[in-house]
């Protein structure tokens, strides 16, 4: 600790604190423009200058100068005021004064400082910036005539996002922020630059002229997309979410968001939202009252009884999922499942069988201090972009060695000194096995207290590093080096994302990753962690609440199979568009067709809903209360910012009403539901709602100790032999199918596509935008081609979000699909 005096106040701060941070601690305000908590010290704007008694004769930038023992700091004097005012005059010389029409007005740091320092005239004259504006893309507007050259946009894009879209170009007065070759922005459109800009130079276009900041009501909630669980602060007005406000004080994401979080909430305002219950009458879905709909559903379910199948999505809140369970009980069925029933098995079976857990062992912030990180699948960034930003910071700031096991290249593989084990599709488990074998062979494995060591050794006979490297097409030395690092560095992390497009080998991957985490000592060690991150905002909650088939009952695939054979009487589908997102569309179609009573509860009339007998209009995340649990076990609260459209109700209210119609009891409200569910949920027993504060509450504490340490042998995959094989996955700009209703993501990726590597594209004479046909067992799909550098020869990629692609005609949950390509 360091002791210093600031404006006469004694302050005690940590060794790495700057004067600015120390002042903040002491409650002393120092103005800043280029400083941001999350960025490295920069010191360019010179607004934060202070006087330090020990450094007389010059002014000291408080945001870059470390606080040292005994320092005596003065943050305001005539001299300081004069210099700050001069700096403001300098900035205002070239800055176009457009405050009346600038969206930043009212929360602009330059405007506020100009006011605070009473810069009513300017002693200096100069030409105003006259630079072209970037209004090409629909999401981020850049007006560099308002720029104060603080560099925060360039810095956040590099330091946090790891994209590097911006840089300063030119020198002196000509200096400006620009993109490569000074063209329009073409990036991930996460809008982190928007959130950092202290002035109106970088603005969210969808929010232009929508509201003055003070007209907005701010409500903290949790993003409805992925399992990262980022806090999104809804800026609402006129019962619409107008924008997402910057908030780095709440939650786990430090104010960072991806395109989905920042520009993807607009689906809640969509005019395509369901506003009334619908009942199929004479073959047509027609509007009906809630009474009629609920009665119809209750009757249908009562009739079906134990022959009912309940399929839920993983975007319902914990409280809602608790009622889903109640519904199953009330109906008398054990046929309950979520998210297609397969993709999460790495957690529910893989981790359960090895560690006795069904969750990630550590929290996200710990990854920033990891020295070695293994990401299984480069798609990890696409599914969990904001966690990817944490990885980027670990790599960039703390020199973490990142290794990626992936069948393609991607954002993660491009990070500094990232090591990519690019393998033939479907062989992730083999590589993990080889790492385990190497650690055991070399005596690097931490085998004390582990069960099943000898059995695993025997089972790994076929997984020598050399054999696996040769079969997978990966460098053997890289496998060894990665394993060695994971076992020897102080803090390490293993990351694996799961979700509907990653159904293949899910249990096996969980087992193999858990084995590796045991042999390296990662599982359960403070500061290290094994992360299995679910695709949806409450994937972990669905597992925690065990939205799983009862013993002897059917899971999702079993239900669909049974239904397709006419063996189920009713299907209840909540928050899932199975026809689009589940593997094997033909099976789903058949199941929906053959089941006499289908209820779909959703916020849009999805493809699946169109096939239903009753459709119940639900509420979006922005309209409801409750809690969700993110991929690091952090329970966080949703808060309603707007009212649901029309008669739409929250899933909680729908289930409540339905339970009541079925003659069952339901908790009075979400809070009561939480109290009940926490008592009934393993890990939640000690959690009460008031413990879920601004930073949420991590159940099982930051480092979750394994219940057991059991190595379980697991067989690897086999590469398929085909000239072309298609792998399926998630796109960065989308999440599930909901984002297809959001303007932001759709502005960037509006259509399905088939991605080709350059080599294949050249050979097939395919260029961007060509219509290509992909033939495989199950059918033929066609879409526009997209040519990129990510894919090796012979491997194609398709994102799974678009119903229009019919991808699940050929995707039945395989790791890779043998395909034929034609134009």
């Amino acid at each position, binding site marked *: 600790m360091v002791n210093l005096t600031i404006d006469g106040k004694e302050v005690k701060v940590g060794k790495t604190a700057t004067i600015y941070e120390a002042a903040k601690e002491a409650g002393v305000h120092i103005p800043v423009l280029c400083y941001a908590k999350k960025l490295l*010290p*920069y*010191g*360019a*704007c*010179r*607004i934060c*200058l202070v006087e330090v008694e020990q450094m007389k004769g*010059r*002014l000291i*930038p408080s945001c*870059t*100068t*470390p606080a040292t023992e005994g320092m005596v700091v003065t943050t305001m004097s005539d001299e300081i005021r*004069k*210099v700050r005012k*001069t*700096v403001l005059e*300098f*900035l205002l*010389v*070239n800055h176009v004064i457009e405050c009346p029409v600038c969206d930043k007005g009212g929360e602009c740091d330059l405007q506020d400082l100009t006011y605070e320092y009473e810069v009513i005239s300017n*002693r*200096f*004259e*100069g030409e105003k910036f006259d630079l072209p504006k970037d209004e090409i893309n629909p999401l981020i507007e850049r007006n560099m005539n308002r720029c*104060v*050259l603080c*560099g925060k946009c360039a810095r956040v894009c590099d330091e946090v996002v790891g994209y590097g879209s911006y*840089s*300063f*170009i*030119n*020198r*002196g*007065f*000509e*200096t400006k922020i620009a993109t490569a070759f000074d063209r329009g922005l073409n990036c991930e459109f996460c809008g982190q630059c928007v959130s950092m800009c202290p002035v109106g130079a970088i603005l969210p276009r969808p929010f232009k002229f929508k509201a003055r900041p003070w007209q907005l009501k701010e409500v903290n909630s949790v993003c409805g997309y992925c399992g990262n669980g980022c806090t999104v602060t809804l800026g609402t007005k006129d019962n619409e979410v107008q924008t997402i406000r910057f908030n780095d004080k709440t939650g786990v994401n430090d104010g960072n968001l991806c395109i989905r979080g920042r520009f993807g909430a607009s689906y809640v305002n969509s005019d395509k939202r369901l506003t009334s219950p619908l009942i199929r009458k004479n073959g047509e879905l027609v509007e009906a009252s809630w009474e009629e709909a609920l009665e119809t559903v209750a009757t249908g379910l009562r009739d079906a009884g134990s022959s009912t199948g309940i399929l839920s999505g993983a975007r319902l809140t914990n409280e809602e999922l608790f009622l889903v369970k109640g519904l199953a009980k009330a109906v008398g069925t054990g046929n309950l499942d979520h998210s297609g029933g397969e993709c999460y098995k790495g957690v529910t079976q893989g981790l359960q069988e090895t560690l006795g857990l069904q969750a990630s062992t550590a929290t996200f912030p710990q990854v920033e201090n990891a020295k070695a990180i293994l990401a299984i699948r480069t798609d990890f960034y696409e599914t969990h972009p904001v966690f990817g930003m944490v990885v980027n910071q670990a790599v960039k700031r703390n*020199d973490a060695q990142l290794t990626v096991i992936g069948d393609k290249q991607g954002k993660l593989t491009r990070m500094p000194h990232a090591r990519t084990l690019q393998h033939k599709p479907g062989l992730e488990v083999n590589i993990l096995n080889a790492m385990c074998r190497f650690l055991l062979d070399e005596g690097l494995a931490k085998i004390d207290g582990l069960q099943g060591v000898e059995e695993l050794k025997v089972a790994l006979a076929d997984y020598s590093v050399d054999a696996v490297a040769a079969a997978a097409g990966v460098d053997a030395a890289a496998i060894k080096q990665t394993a060695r690092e994971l076992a020897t560095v102080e803090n390490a992390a293993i990351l694996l994302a799961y979700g509907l497009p990653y159904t293949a080998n899910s249990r096996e991957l969980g087992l193999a990753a858990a084995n590796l985490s045991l042999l390296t000592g990662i599982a359960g060690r403070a500061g290290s962690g094994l992360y299995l991150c679910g695709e949806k905002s409450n994937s972990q909650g669905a597992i925690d609440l065990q939205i799983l088939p009862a013993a002897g009952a059917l899971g999702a695939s079993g239900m669909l199979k049974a239904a397709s054979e006419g063996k189920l009487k009713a299907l209840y589908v909540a928050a899932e568009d199975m026809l689009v997102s589940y593997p094997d569309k033909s099976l789903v179609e058949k199941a929906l067709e053959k089941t006499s009573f289908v209820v779909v509860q959703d916020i849009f009339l999805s493809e699946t809903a169109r096939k239903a007998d009753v459709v119940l209009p639900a509420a979006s995340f922005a309209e409801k209360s409750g809690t969700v649990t993110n991929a690091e076990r952090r329970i966080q609260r949703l808060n309603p910012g707007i009212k649901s459209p029309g008669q739409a109700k929250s899933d909680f209210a729908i289930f409540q009403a339905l339970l009541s119609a079925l003659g069952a009891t339901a908790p009075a409200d979400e809070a009561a539901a939480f109290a009940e569910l926490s008592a009934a949920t393993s890990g939640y027993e000690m959690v009460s709602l008031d413990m879920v504060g601004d930073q949420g509450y991590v159940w099982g504490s930051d480092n979750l100790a394994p219940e057991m340490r059991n190595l379980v042998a697991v067989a690897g995959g086999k590469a398929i032999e085909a000239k072309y094989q298609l792998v399926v996955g998630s796109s960065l700009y989308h999440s599930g199918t909901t984002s297809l209703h959001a303007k932001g993501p759709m502005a960037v990726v509006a259509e399905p596509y088939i991605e080709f590597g350059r080599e294949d594209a050249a050979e097939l004479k395919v260029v961007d935008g060509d219509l290509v046909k992909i033939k495989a067992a199950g059918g033929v799909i066609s879409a526009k081609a997209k040519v990129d550098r990510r894919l090796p020869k012979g491997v194609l990629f398709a994102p799974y979000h678009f119903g229009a692609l019919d991808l699940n005609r050929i995707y039945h949950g395989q790791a890779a699909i043998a395909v034929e390509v034609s134009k």
Partner: protein
Amino acid sequence: MSRIKSPAELEAFRKEILAQRDPDKPCITLCSGSACNATGSGKVAAALELEIEKQGVTTEVVSRRTGCHGFCEQGPIVVIYPQGICYLKVQPEDIAEIISETIKKQKIVERLLYVDPNSGERATLEEDIPFYKNQKRLVLGSNRKIDPRSLEDYLAVEGYQALTKVLFEMTPEQVVGEVKDAKLRGRGGAGFPSGLKWDFARKAPGDQKYVVVNCDEGDPGAYMDRSVMEGNPFAVLEGLMIGAYAIGANEGYIYVRQEYPLAVANLTVAIEKAEEYGLLGKDILGSGFDFTIKVHRGAGAFICGEETSLLNSLEGKAGEPNARPPFPAIRGLWTKPTNINNVETWANIPMIINKGAAFFSAIGTESSKGTKIFSLVGKVNNTGLVEVPMGASLRDIIFKIGGGVPGDKKFKAVQTGGPSGGCLPEGLLDTKVDFDELSQAGAMMGSGGMIVMDEDTCLVDIARYFLAFLSDESCGKCTPCREGIRQMLKILTNMTKGLAKEGDIDLLFELAEATKGSSMCALGKTAPNPVLSTLKHFREEYEAHINEKRCPSLSCKALIDFYIDPEKCKGCGACFRKCPAEAIEGGKKRIHVIVQDKCTKCGGCHEACPAAFDAVNILSGVPVPEATPEEARAIG
């Protein structure tokens, strides 16, 4: 030649080289630095080779193309050893005579000798020329004796003795101690004690450390580092290796301006030779010390001479400074502890090790030790590179070495320290070259630029000129530098155009203080120096520009007018013929008149008017008298 594996092998090799060299054998050295190359050294070299062959003296004479001798104005320079006969401005056609007369007959070619412009005396030997006589060439001295691309030549002048000593007889702590004791201060500008800087980097935690040579010499007209790098690259390499050993680095980078192709070429050859002989690479001389060097060419930004900007540029980022602390010694190149010194600093190191800290610290003043190389340019008779002991007075440098101001003009000011240095008036000519004394006088040592100005130089315009340079070169990162310099420049430009307002001096002072006090790096912090020093010593010139719209030096075009005195004009027509703008009305035996509207103020008429008539006047701050009416223009 195979790798040299031990100090004994090195000494044996050195002996072998020296044994092959007869010190009495005539050796013709030809300066082949960039300046002499520009005046034809290449052609002279070709002629020399041809003529040696032609006159059949191949075995009797040795020829050598050396680095810069410093007396650049008089190049190409030929010096013949062992006597040290110095021929200046040698052209290819002079070579035959030099060989036939001087080499064969030991006769001096008189017309190629130096002639003192004041006394008219000739000087035969290099050491008799006042320009050289008053210098102390400890660093530059070897330049004229060796071929910069020859490792043998470098070994012949005690090369690599210091490295051997360091690697086998000294601990890193002792090396740092020696540099500390020598009280060497960085030659790049700030004058930070080098030993202390090394010590910081040595003590900084980290396995990987770097050493860097800053050869991004950007001051207009300054070329000290270029000449050392071109002329004696091995000395820089040796110094760098000693520093690397001292701080615990195994990799070095040399950052050289793209505009210094010869320096890059000579350096590259030197590195290749050193690698070939095992004086770079693994296990140097069997000591276990490994060292590799990479050369990086800068893209021409002045700011990259600032150390953190240089490191950013080395990393492939935009050349702009970082906030310090952390200093590069703690967090430098690729975040590793890094010691960065300027070329001249590194070149001093082998000497300090060889001759000892005591020898070095005996030279100079209390706070500044050793010698300093200056690039003496401007309105001075002998321009070139001069190396003087610290403590030499500006007067001695300008008048004894530089031979004073040309023509009948009066000395007005000397600007030291590059574009952000300060201008000192005649009254301060006895200021000694010493880091602290120069700073106290309002100038600075800088990297060693020295520009002499005579009475025709307008100091307001000079300040404007330097600020224009700095405004162009400000990286734009921090607000006060980016905008403050521009605003000062704007005011100064207005002054030279007669557009200044009352209060501009006060505003200049305020801007200067704000820029100096709040800028991020040395560029901004020192940028106001030209303004502040000229305001301090030549304030009356500013006042004249503002209040009287008068340029006392008659140099600011917007403030002067040319006027032909009708009383003195003899109607000779010289001015009429010279005027490129057809702005003069003349005629035979008629008084000539300048049409002011057409005049471009080129000054041609003033120069053309015969001195005996002296009819063309330059007016400033006064109205131009009415032109003589047409009818009254007839003379006589």
